[in-house]
């Protein structure tokens, strides 16, 4: 029987996180404080984060030791297995070898606990009694709820009200782990009360929930705020994924040609990829790809992908001819197609051309996710489907080129609490062009009939 999985013993689990800041060819530009225009200083972050995490945020040490209590919690599900996706390889008829890190084996089912556990630990050590955070669908909220319970911290999660109503099982998970899950906007904060006064039926937004969680932390000396993406220390904690993968691939005697992950806030992408970026900086020939969600108006006319028009991402996304087709779509909206929310480290790596970004439409990603589930069994989280779509594209390219590429990607989580999304896809609710544009244009001519904000 051919080998499917590579395990590491618990004793082989990495004892340090990797900090890419030590190896960047040019230093990360410090984020500027919007009020002063000056680089953000540790004391600016102190109202919401403990100083031991702020030190990690600004650290340029290459290796940061993982505290023993964190390793003990990690050992509940780590090291995670490295799989070979032989089923998908066969389904695609590709000569590529596809490997993936299965981060879906953690208790909440995603990579998020890698930083949640670390953050809970550092807050506990700093003397904090309670953590506050926001969540949308609840993936981060449930990871932090579990982590807080592990270290005896209270946890308060402001869950966007539309998500609170739509994702009851995630809410139940958080409450099972002992967290207090509050629909946002709420009457617990001034920010929430102000919104409710204007609109009692407000469905909430991530921005409102963030405001509530931060205010909740700032107003309580024994509380701090916790964020599950974007920040340097979050990405740092996730690097255990890539460090484990390197050891596992070494056992097989292979090194990846392409490393891929889905990049929303950047943490799962960075977690797998940053150790390989280090290798690339030191001369390894490896392509590293961040797969992103975006729309794609002309998919029916030819396979192409959007990509940044320049490395600084100052131009609109441009169509790139990734599969050799010569279709050129019409120019589309400039401002709105710029990327939002990427982690500063990931943006910096794009500017340095150490990684590249590819974007995929939701129909493509769900198609890839269903293909994956049918070939490999596991049902991926919808976010993970972006990485799978990128893998499928790369594997088919390898087939076209007749190359036996080695592809590694981060299977960042399972989709068992996201079946409503699969249902929407499978029932055809995500189809394109539901309404003829001419009909909309005619209707919009009489705009008086539309409600105004």
């Amino acid at each position: 029987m051919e080998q499917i999985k590579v395990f590491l013993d618990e004793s082989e689990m990495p004892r340090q996180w990797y900090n890419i800041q030590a190896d960047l060819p040019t230093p990360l530009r410090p984020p500027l404080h919007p009020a002063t225009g000056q680089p953000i200083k540790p004391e600016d972050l102190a109202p919401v984060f403990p100083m031991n995490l702020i030190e990690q945020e600004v650290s340029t040490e290459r290796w940061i030791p993982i505290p023993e209590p964190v390793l003990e919690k990690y050992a509940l599900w780590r090291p995670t297995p490295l799989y070979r996706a032989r089923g998908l390889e066969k389904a695609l008829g590709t000569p590529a070898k596809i490997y993936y890190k299965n981060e879906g084996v953690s208790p909440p089912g995603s990579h998020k606990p890698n930083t949640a556990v670390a953050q809970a630990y550092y807050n506990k050590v700093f003397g904090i009694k309670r953590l506050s955070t926001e969540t949308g669908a609840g993936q981060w909220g449930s990871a932090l709820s579990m982590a807080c319970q592990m270290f005896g911290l209270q946890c308060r999660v402001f869950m966007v009200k539309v998500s609170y109503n739509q994702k009851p099982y995630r809410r139940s998970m958080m409450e099972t782990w002992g967290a207090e899950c509050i629909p946002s906007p709420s009457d617990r904060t001034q920010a929430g009360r102000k919104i409710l006064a204007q609109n009692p039926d407000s469905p909430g937004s991530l921005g409102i929930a963030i405001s509530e969680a931060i205010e909740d932390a700032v107003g309580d000396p024994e509380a701090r705020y916790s964020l599950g993406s974007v920040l340097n220390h979050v990405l740092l904690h996730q690097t255990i994924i890539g460090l484990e993968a390197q050891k596992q691939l070494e056992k097989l005697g292979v090194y990846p040609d392409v490393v891929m992950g889905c990049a929303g806030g950047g943490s799962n992408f960075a977690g797998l990829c940053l150790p390989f970026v280090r290798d690339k900086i030191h001369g390894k020939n490896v392509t590293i790809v961040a797969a992103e969600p975006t729309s794609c108006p002309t998919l029916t006319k030819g396979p192409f992908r959007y990509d940044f028009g320049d490395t600084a991402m100052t131009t609109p996304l441009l169509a790139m001819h990734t599969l050799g087709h010569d279709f050129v779509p019409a120019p589309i909206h400039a401002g709105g197609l710029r990327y939002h929310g990427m982690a500063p480290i990931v943006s910096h790596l794009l500017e340095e051309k150490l990684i590249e970004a590819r974007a995929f439409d939701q129909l493509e990603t769900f198609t890839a996710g269903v293909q994956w589930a049918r070939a490999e069994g596991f049902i991926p989280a919808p976010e993970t489907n972006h990485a799978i779509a990128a893998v499928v594209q790369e594997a088919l390219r390898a087939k076209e080129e007749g190359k036996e590429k080695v592809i590694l990607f981060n299977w960042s989580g399972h989709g068992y609490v996201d079946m409503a999304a699969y249902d929407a896809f499978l029932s055809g609710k995500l189809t394109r062009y539901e309404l003829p544009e001419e009909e909309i244009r005619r209707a919009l001519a009489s705009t008086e009939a539309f409600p105004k904000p």
Partner: protein
Amino acid sequence: MNAQDILARMDALETRCPKLGHQVTFEYCRQESLKRPCSRALVCWNHRLPVEMILKKLVGEETYEAVFGGPPKSRVESLMEAIESAKQRCNAGGSGPREAPS
């Protein structure tokens, strides 16, 4: 089909929100940010609807430009703004400056 019917049909369309991580309707996206469109609305909807035209009509050119005209704020910028706002609210509400717990 009249304008209200068209809007009702558009409002019922669903897409996956990359910020929240689940399905949302167009109705939510077009007024996500305190009745203003979500800053990702163009990215998320332009392949399904002439969303630029629709949003300009619904919210007006001025609001549209305010949301989509400039470069989007980074998450870190938004975070710092939220911290400053929260500090001001807490100070106005009588909370004093905080010390790290011992």
